């Protein structure tokens, strides 16, 4: 953790996302090891610090906090659009750990359930904690279908999400929540997985696009039809190749 990520990037905690990104680009360029052949070691350390700071602020803003535990400022709310509960990361582990930290706070219920886990479930949890989603799925898949309980579906959902299988993940999350409707963890996971569409539609409106159905067919369409005609006779149909 960087103690004061805003200071590293030289921005105000109330800065807009655009200001944040500009500052990040500037500092990254300044401390890029290639730009500092005379003191690479020092530059590399600064460069790393800049990367960490930026990601730390991003994670905090996605969670709706400021990066060091203060309530978010008004200007930030206005600048960055609606926040979202990001927790999954196809291909990397970082944000998943955030999620795990969050749910480890339900510790009592959690610990009781963990102690009753099967070997495969426990293995899956360890793999997931370290970002090894494929390995987690392998461990889980060795369990025959009749022995798959809510816990199994819960971990399978998180691991599927981790490898980018988000449709399967949502199915599994539903199964877990259906099997044990009283379990808060399962309900929370399902809620987070179902929410990405809401976040997206809020973004759409925030940027003034007026909903996903608010798209009209325009001049482009003319060219498109023309192109499709051309394609159908010369390219075999599929795909919208076109001329201006």
């Amino acid at each position, binding site marked *: 953790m960087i103690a004061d990520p805003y200071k590293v990037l030289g921005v105000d905690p109330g800065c807009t*996302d*655009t200001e944040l*990104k*500009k500052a*990040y*680009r500037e500092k*990254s360029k300044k401390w890029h090891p290639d730009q500092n052949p005379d003191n690479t070691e020092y530059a590399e350390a600064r460069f790393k610090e800049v*990367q960490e700071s*930026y990601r730390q602020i*991003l994670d905090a803003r996605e969670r709706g906090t400021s990066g060091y535990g203060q309530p978010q400022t008004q200007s930030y709310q206005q600048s960055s*659009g609606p926040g*979202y509960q*990001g927790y*999954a*990361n*196809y*291909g*990397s582990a970082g944000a998943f750990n955030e999620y795990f930290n969050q749910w480890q706070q339900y510790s009592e219920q959690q610990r009781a359930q963990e102690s009753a886990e099967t070997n495969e479930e426990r293995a899956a949890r360890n793999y997931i904690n370290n970002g090894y989603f494929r390995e987690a799925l392998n461990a889980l898949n060795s369990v025959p279908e009749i022995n798959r309980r809510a816990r199994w579906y819960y971990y399978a959902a998180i691991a*599927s999400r981790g490898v*980018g*299988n*988000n*449709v*399967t993940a*949502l199915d599994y999350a539903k199964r877990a929540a259906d099997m044990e409707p009283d379990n808060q963890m399962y309900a929370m996971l399902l809620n987070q997985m179902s929410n*990405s*569409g809401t*976040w*997206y*539609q809020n*973004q*759409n409106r925030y*940027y*003034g*696009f*007026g909903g*996903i*159905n*608010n*798209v*009209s*067919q*325009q*001049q*482009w*369409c003319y060219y*498109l039809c023309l192109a499709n005609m*051309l*394609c159908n006779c*010369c*390219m*075999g149909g*599929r*795909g*919208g*190749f*076109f*001329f*201006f």
Partner: protein
Amino acid sequence: MFGYVMVNQDELKLKDYNRYRSFYCGLCRVLEKKYGISGKLELTYDMTFVDILLNAYMELPLKSERHRCMVHPVKKQDMLFNEITDYCADMTLLLTYYKMLDDVNDDGSMIGRVFVRKEKKKFERVANAYPRQAKVFEESMRSLAQTEERREYNLDKVAGFTGNMLAELLVYEESVWSDELRKLGFYLGKFIYLLDAFEDLEKDLKKGAYNPWQSSKDRKDFEALVENTLMMMISECAKSFERLPIVQDVDILRNIIYSGVWQKYEEVREKREKKGEEE
């Protein structure tokens, strides 16, 4: 490749629209110069998006020129390009070549055969220049064909191959943001595959050909299912975009990601609705 990732022109400021066109025309020109006139036909909205996105991420200098072209013989067009445009042209050739190869294997497509024979040398040169991308494209195309062959109805499995291809395509060179770019490309690829399949559903059913939506098409909530699934994909793509440190051309890119990508979907949906009413 598919032509789904386009701008919503109505919601775009004039200056952004002109800039979008300049990218488009720049790519078109590079395709023409590098790969002859045939390049123009392979040119799509999708690759223009990649061009603008990678340029926004890398902020390399762009050359601006004005030229006439075959489609616009009278009025000179503004064009923007740099090495990223070259890259996009090269990737267009690679993807088109693999697609044609696939068509030949599928149904002995004549056009495919002609294309493959004619462009073989160029293809090999480009594939050697970008072994990382070429390897992923080739493996993904092969696995996709096998997966479609065995009529896989798990949407993640079958859409993931196009996802992998776009993921690799978005990494021009490795950097600290490679993972996020791959993620963006991965979900965009899944979105494109599933939308393409949705568009082809009737055609495939009529032919008795495989379509990933076939197993769910009779559900009462089919349309909502398609829309939700597509939205799951594009919202992951959008989340990655918002994390990336991009400030250049964000209005164009957001227009595409939050709105333009739905244009084709709406078109297909409306067509289907009308047809349903007639029946």
